[in-house]
């Protein structure tokens, strides 16, 4: 399959993503990467599908790539939650009935259907993030980019949102999750570590988390379960990764 998103920054940073990828990007360059994806940069070449990201075709690119930014969590374009969600659909000039039906069905998925007539300033932070993710997903983009917003969700909402994003990926979308919390990387398929304008490692989740020395030296840490597994593997108690508590306990006390 061809790559859908091709990203080049300078000579060292190169990211290629195919459809159905769920990527977590960690490191200290997250903000710079998001800035280049939003506005473009002199040293950057970005291809989305077959179109290059320039100032002139920014409308076409924004139809395919939608962002959920932390700085915009308190910025609302409408005065009710329903207005906020419907803004994108109104910009696409859909009809009135289509908009209301779509909002009803999608907000039931996200469990926002009782909050539709409220003022968005009065919502809790977890509901605000869900509303922002819903309003970005409802225009059916190809790529969704999340900037450090997952840590604001409650625990049950986090599992719900990750289920919905996995569903989105299976239907041919790409999800890019810029995060600082290493525990969230367990929910995705791939990890890319970008530090000081270089790609340090890239690959499937478990193989990147296997490189614990690099991650600890960069200050990124490891998820709790993977850390435990690593220590016990070093002491020789277990052979391979056991990623749930039950399996790990079973493997530890087998001997």
């Amino acid at each position, binding site marked *: 399959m061809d790559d859908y998103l091709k990203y080049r920054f300078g000579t060292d940073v190169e990211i290629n993503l195919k459809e159905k990828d769920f990527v977590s990007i960690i490191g200290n360059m997250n903000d710079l990467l998001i800035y280049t994806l939003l506005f473009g940069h002199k040293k950057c070449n970005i291809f989305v599908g077959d179109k290059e990201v320039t100032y002139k075709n920014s409308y076409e690119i924004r139809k395919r790539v939608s962002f959920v930014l932390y700085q915009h969590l308190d910025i609302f374009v409408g005065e009710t939650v329903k207005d906020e969600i419907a803004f994108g659909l109104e910009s696409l000039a859909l009809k009135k009935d289509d908009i209301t039906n779509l909002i009803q069905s999608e907000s039931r998925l996200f469990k926002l259907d009782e909050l539709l007539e409220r003022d968005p300033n009065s919502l809790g932070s977890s509901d605000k993030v869900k509303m922002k993710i819903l309003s970005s997903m409802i225009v059916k983009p190809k790529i969704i980019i999340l900037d450090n917003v997952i*840590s604001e969700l409650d*625990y049950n909402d986090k599992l719900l949102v990750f289920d919905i994003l996995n569903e989105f990926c299976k239907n041919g979308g790409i999800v890019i999750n810029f995060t600082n919390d290493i525990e969230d990387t367990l929910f995705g398929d791939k990890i890319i570590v970008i530090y000081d304008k270089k790609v340090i490692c890239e690959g499937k989740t478990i193989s990147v988390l296997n490189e614990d020395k690099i991650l600890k030296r960069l200050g990124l840490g490891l998820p709790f379960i993977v850390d435990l597994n690593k220590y016990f593997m070093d002491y020789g108690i277990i052979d391979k990764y056991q990623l749930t508590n039950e399996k790990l*306990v079973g493997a530890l006390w087998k001997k």
Partner: protein
Amino acid sequence: MEEIEFNNVTFIINEKTPLEKTILNDVSFKMEKGKIYSFLGASNSGKTAIADLINALIVPTYGSVKIGNFINDGRRIKNVNKLRFDTGYVFKNPYDMFFNKTVKQEIAFGMKYFNYKVKKKSLRINDALKLVGLDESYLKLNPLRLTLVDAKKVALACTLIYNPSILILDEFTNGLNYSDKQDLLHLLKLLKNKYNKTIILLSKDTSFCYEIADYFYLMHLTKIVKEGSREILHDEELLKSINLEVPKIVSFVNVCKKKKHDIDYYTNIHDLIKGVYRDVF
């Protein structure tokens, strides 16, 4: 500053309109000096309102709040600036705290108004930045253009510069990575042990608070459901029913105990590994 006491506090906004909402319902507790307290709860459970009440930014609808010698119950508080001077409050969204053009003006903001005569003002500002892990190059930047992690650190420096005796951190660990969290742990332990400050953490991050706090309050919707020391976080069903994540160490040890291996509830990962190693062999 001595104790903090909440007596049957209820807080309702937009009373007698269709948009009425109860934020806190009959909350009472007592806090002592010099410990680290932690309020754990999902969003919309009223944690920020407790911080606002301690800082006297809002007034309770019923009940009263006592902070040291100050009483906040609806009447006008004399010398309320003295209270605010002594409680450092970092907002949930650090960009809400910024309104000056440069970081230096931001950190040095209240010094003029408090007649805070310090001989070497710039030295004090640099000390505050060093405590949170930033250097002098941040002084000329526009605070609204900082990244999230830097903004949180600058907001913390703004409050630490007055040397308050109560420090309130509202959801500070959201979005911090592993090394920043370890630095924060060291800083909080230093503030508690060496300077004897009272620290109040409002958070959803149960793993972080489990490691450092002495006393916990669990909040759900508008009430305090349970309070106590670390043992209350060992009850998985309670935490799941109020939409909180179980601390990772606790869930691992609970699984061990279910399969009848005797492991204690340690607070950090190194002690846990030593304990497991001892039990396996």
